[in-house]
């Protein structure tokens, strides 16, 4: 079990959360200007890093806000959490 620190509600069990994949993936401002390859890259390609990983979580069963968690994918240690715009 992971204990995930929601920036608003504090540490809660991972049952309450939904995983949202890697963070820092802004949607391209002009998708129509991209090639198919660039668009597919945005849609599907992720780094799947080993070690420190910034990822998105949603506190689905709690305050229903999305936020960012930094987690070590090897040890599952949570290194920090923060809101969008703040630094985790």
């Amino acid at each position, binding site marked *: 079990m992971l204990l995930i620190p929601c920036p*608003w*509600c*504090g540490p*809660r*069990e991972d*049952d*309450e959360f939904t995983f949202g994949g890697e963070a820092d993936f802004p949607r391209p401002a002009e998708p129509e200007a991209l090639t198919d390859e660039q668009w597919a890259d945005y849609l599907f390609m992720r780094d799947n890093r080993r070690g420190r990983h910034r990822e998105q979580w949603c506190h689905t*069963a*709690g*305050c*229903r*806000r999305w936020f960012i968690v930094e987690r070590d994918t090897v040890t599952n240690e949570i290194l920090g959490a923060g809101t969008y715009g703040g630094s985790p």
Partner: protein
Amino acid sequence: MPSPIPRRSPLGEIQSAESPPPDGQLVERPFLTHLNLRLHPDDAEALAAVHQVIGVQLPLTPNTITAGGDVTAIWLGPDEWLLLAEHHQSDALVADLQDALASHFASVVDISAGQTVIRLRGPSTLDVLARGCALDLHPTVFPPGACAQTLLARAQALLVAVDDTPTFDIVVRRSFAPYVAAWLEDSGRQFGLHFPTSDTA
């Protein structure tokens, strides 16, 4: 003119007592007004306008409530609150809030029909809840005035610590209510907890 459809509370078939005992350990509080309110917490004017209408400040501290008068304001998110009030105020309260917030970026939605409140009270309360909830609800951690949205026996629920009897209000969706009610009776069986019925009331 057709006769009006009688209203039914989500637990009307489980709690059949005409007038549940006011000090019951496990009762539904049916037909309350539930309003979902959203506005930006930095909008001081909107906060003041709401305060004017409901008589209490919206809680800005996560997972707390403010109570007083007829309305209880419960924190749901940084820009979202649940207002609980007596049922007869529903339309008037919505209209008053919409008037007060007309010039602000805000929304007021009447969700009274979508959820209900179960009140659990008495010395066994924490034991009953602990069987289905991972949160530490002990008063030193979760004092009266605290609230939390979490999972209770895997159902989404909003827990509100009302007083140190202890008394908890459990807000659940209408469709989950019979399940949560059955679970509470099961969890509370060793303490003799059950909803008041016309036989027992």
